[in-house]
């Protein structure tokens, strides 16, 4: 197979629909008959990224590219950008509001979780411009 790509837009503060993109991504991978462990890693990574877009960004997209060797999830937003990426990557650090915490998020585990799910994790951000996160998961024989 060649490369299969899908892109989903994610709205700021749309908690009603938050998780829909990741749910669709999970279903696509299930339909492709991929191994359940890799599906779980991709789904968790995509979902954390999607929640981050809803909670912290001004809106953005989640994209998945599937080729025979790997799955790549790219989350890109239009701002506001992260000032200190190193600090944002620290477990337990969060700028989420009390309201978000009451919903069960904002524990400061999102970015570390995404990294944990990925074989390659890249994050770049510019204040006033936006943030781009790339998570790459390699496929083994049998996935």
């Amino acid at each position, binding site marked *: 197979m060649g490369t299969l790509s899908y892109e989903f837009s994610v709205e700021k503060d749309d908690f009603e629909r938050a*998780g829909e993109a990741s*749910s669709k991504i999970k279903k696509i991978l299930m339909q492709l008959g991929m191994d359940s462990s890799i599906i779980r890693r991709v789904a968790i990574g995509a979902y954390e990224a999607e*929640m981050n877009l809803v909670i912290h960004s001004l809106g953005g997209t989640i994209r998945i590219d599937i080729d025979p060797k790997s799955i790549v999830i790219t989350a890109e937003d239009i701002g506001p950008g992260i000032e200190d990426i190193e600090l944002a990557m620290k477990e337990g650090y969060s700028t989420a509001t009390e309201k978000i915490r009451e919903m*069960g998020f904002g524990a*400061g585990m999102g970015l570390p979780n995404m990294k944990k799910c990925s074989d390659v994790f890249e994050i770049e951000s510019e204040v006033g411009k936006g943030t781009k996160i790339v998570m790459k998961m390699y496929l083994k024989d049998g996935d």
Partner: protein
Amino acid sequence: MKIREIRDVLNAEVLWGEDLLDNEVHYAFSSDLMSDVLAFAKRGTILLTGLINSQVIRTAEMADINAILFVRGKVPDKEVIRLAQESSIVILTTKYTLYTTSGILYNHGLRGIEAYNT
């Protein structure tokens, strides 16, 4: 432990998934922090939580969690129950608190998940 036994020992009410009560769970994880659930819960876990929003169902869906037990008598709204149904996740509610619920299940042999080696 079968979900049916969990229902029985906690006098829990099944909100969705009567047909799936013979499914087994191997661990329980008690948390109101969904990111911690995503980080630590394994497949075959029942999630015990006091949160009843749709993100709880989404979290379970992504982490391959096949049963959720709401504590302190909480019942989510219809939309949340529908979402659980869509993902074939059994949902139950018990009047016990999170601590008591966890204790009862532990007593019945259901073990937790360790986040770190202790």
